[in-house]
């Protein structure tokens, strides 16, 4: 409801500037534009933040050697973990970013770069 009125308010502004004889005061429009910008859905994680947090989670996994962890490392091939460890790392990432990853996607996350890609593209990552 609030979103609808915010959108309607935003759409109404260009029409008013066309028909008015005097120019609309500028601060009013920029206030309207900035009202949209302050909505909570526009806050996304930056890529570096995602990379840092993912690497921290992988490094703090007890079976992992922290010096071997790079953003491209493969969990089973490079770090020598098994498939259960893979699932455990994905669950640890779910906890860190407050997500719930469905099983089909979780099965595909085999390496650090896939995890970073998935989390960066997830709208609810927090």
């Amino acid at each position, binding site marked *: 409801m609030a979103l609808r009125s915010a959108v309607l308010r935003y759409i109404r502004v260009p029409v008013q500037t066309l028909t008015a004889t005097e120019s609309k005061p500028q601060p009013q429009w920029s206030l309207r534009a900035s009202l949209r910008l302050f909505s909570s859905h526009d806050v996304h994680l930056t890529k570096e933040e995602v990379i840092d947090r993912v690497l921290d989670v992988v490094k*703090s*996994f007890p079976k992992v050697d922290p010096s071997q962890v790079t953003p491209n490392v493969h969990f089973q091939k490079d770090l020598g973990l098994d498939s259960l460890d893979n699932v*455990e790392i994905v*669950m640890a990432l*779910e906890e860190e970013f407050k997500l719930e990853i469905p099983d089909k996607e979780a099965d595909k996350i085999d390496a650090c770069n896939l995890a970073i890609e998935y989390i960066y593209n997830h709208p609810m990552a927090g």
Partner: protein
Amino acid sequence: MAFALRSVKVPPNSASLEEARSRVFDFFRIACRSIPAIMDIYNLDDVVTKSQLRSTIASEIRKNSHITNPKVIDLLLFKGMEELNNIVEHAKQRHHIIGQYVLGRQGLVQDLDTKDEGMSDFLKNFYKSNYF
């Protein structure tokens, strides 16, 4: 919510090892997702962390990783599901959880006094288990 887990029945027949493996991972995910609720019910926040509980669950599953018969795996999953249900619906108590899943082998054994130093190895093994 507590009885929601019970409705996820493990059908008694896994056709192959691959299906049993995916059931094991599903069970592991269900268990990990109930960890925050478990920590809340039993007030485990100052005793153990979530990642330690995850590792404990993973090592319990790994103890049976050598089994190749899918029906045996189904039975183990059924028992695991039952245990998880008992824990989540507060049928167990805090000392059960701490004793079974937080402390290692050395935690429960009280023989760290000086009077037990001279005890024979035979007796120590006997106290641990029947088969040695």
